[in-house]
């Protein structure tokens, strides 16, 4: 099960946002219409695969869907959008503001026991 919109290319998958053909606004995740000008002329556009860690927090709550502990984070991309995901922090959390790489990875377990594939961040 996937909860993030990743591009098909296996080599360097990119998170796909929507760009409005009328006014140029970029949105993630994609809305049905451009929320700035209400145009329906939206097309997929790949986002950068690197960003800066805005903030993170280690979660200790136990939940069958998200077996803890795990680290949630917001990462700011050059396109001006902020992405939520989980941070690889086995070797400790990097300082806020550090560069991280985005990649598709497991963030949880779905009801059938399969992996939920979302957004993960790897410290660089």
């Amino acid at each position, binding site marked *: 099960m996937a*909860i*993030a919109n990743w591009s098909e290319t296996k080599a360097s998958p990119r998170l796909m946002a929507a760009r409005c053909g009328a006014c140029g606004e970029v*949105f*993630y*995740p994609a809305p049905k219409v451009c*929320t700035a000008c209400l145009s329906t002329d939206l097309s997929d556009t790949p986002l950068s695969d690197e960003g800066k860690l*805005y*903030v*993170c*927090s*280690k*979660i*200790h*709550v136990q*939940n069958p869907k*998200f077996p803890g502990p*795990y680290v*949630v984070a*917001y990462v*700011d991309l050059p396109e*001006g*959008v*902020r992405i*939520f*995901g*989980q941070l690889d922090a086995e070797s400790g959390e990097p300082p*806020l503001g550090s560069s991280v790489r985005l990649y598709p990875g497991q*963030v*949880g377990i779905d009801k059938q026991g399969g992996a*939920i594939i*979302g*957004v993960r961040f790897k410290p660089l």
Partner: protein
Amino acid sequence: MRDVSIIGVGMSAFAKRKEDSVADIAQPAILEAMRDAGVLPRDLNAAFCGSVFSPGSSGQRILKGLGIHGLPILNVENACSSGSSALREAYIGIAAGLYDVALAFGVDKLTALGGGALPLLDEDVEAGQGVIMPAIYAMRARRHMEEFGTTREQLAAIAVKNHKNSVHNPKAQYRETYTLEQILNSRPVAEPLTLLQCCPTGDGAAAAILCASDLAHKFKGDPVRIRASVLRSGTFTDKFRDMTVSELTVDTAARAYEMAGLGPKDVNVLEVHDAFTIGELMYYEALGLCAHGEGGRVVDEGLAEIGGRFPVNPSGGLLSKGHPVGATGVAQIYEIVNQLRGRCEQRQVDDARIGLTHCTGGGSAGFDHVACTIHILEKA
């Protein structure tokens, strides 16, 4: 617009009441408010029920057992602001002249959900990847610490204060004091927040009777004037946002102060949405009680203690009194009305003339929060 007053309030003791129905929980609180006001079912022109997790049509189901039926009854869901949004609906109806007397109440039974963090929608892009309400507040705390040097100890001291206040509140879910070390050493939930910095889950209800101020003399209840009643919803963005600013509360507060013709310096006592310690600290700033980034100083100087310059959460707040979500906004009104009437005994704030309630919440990707209400009340 007519002037509106609150002439009666009631509240259940907040507790875990797994065996009781929503009606069992709500009816005594409503009855207490009606007796306090001196109104009978026939005096009511409308009723508003705020709840998040109660079954549909709960307002009608609860009120039939108190002889209240036939009149307009509206069920209101608006995240943690459900009860306070119900109260605002009653206010609007009376101010507009549609009703003279109306009931507003809030109720929720969180033990029916099985405990733990409140459920968020799986389809939400953040909740579906592991966000929970404590995580949202924890990330705000982390940024606030990073940018302003706010400390874990300052956050924990807010829990110490609110737990200390609730010792004198017979209706609070927890009535024990905790040391700073106990708060800091309780188990981690979402770093840097520990368990005793997160509000508990529980069950409860609170009710208020509102009346056109010029008709209040017809009833025995000791009236308190509503100077401001404001509801706002959060602004959505997927772009950058400063997580150290509670922007929805800033917006709501500015409008509430304008409506009341008052400012933060005029407020003598506040009930604020302290679902987590960092929330209360950031709301000191957002409500204009101090400048942005100076919440830690408010803690260090004891300004929000009972006896301080602007006591916050004398009831114990959500952290200690409890947070049955739909009930909370009206329970805050219960406390402020009784503070302004001078009925709070050992937790009474001296010379309280103006009080403020602030209730906000709802976790959804791209929002600060989904809803916020502020009410400013004045001793008649």
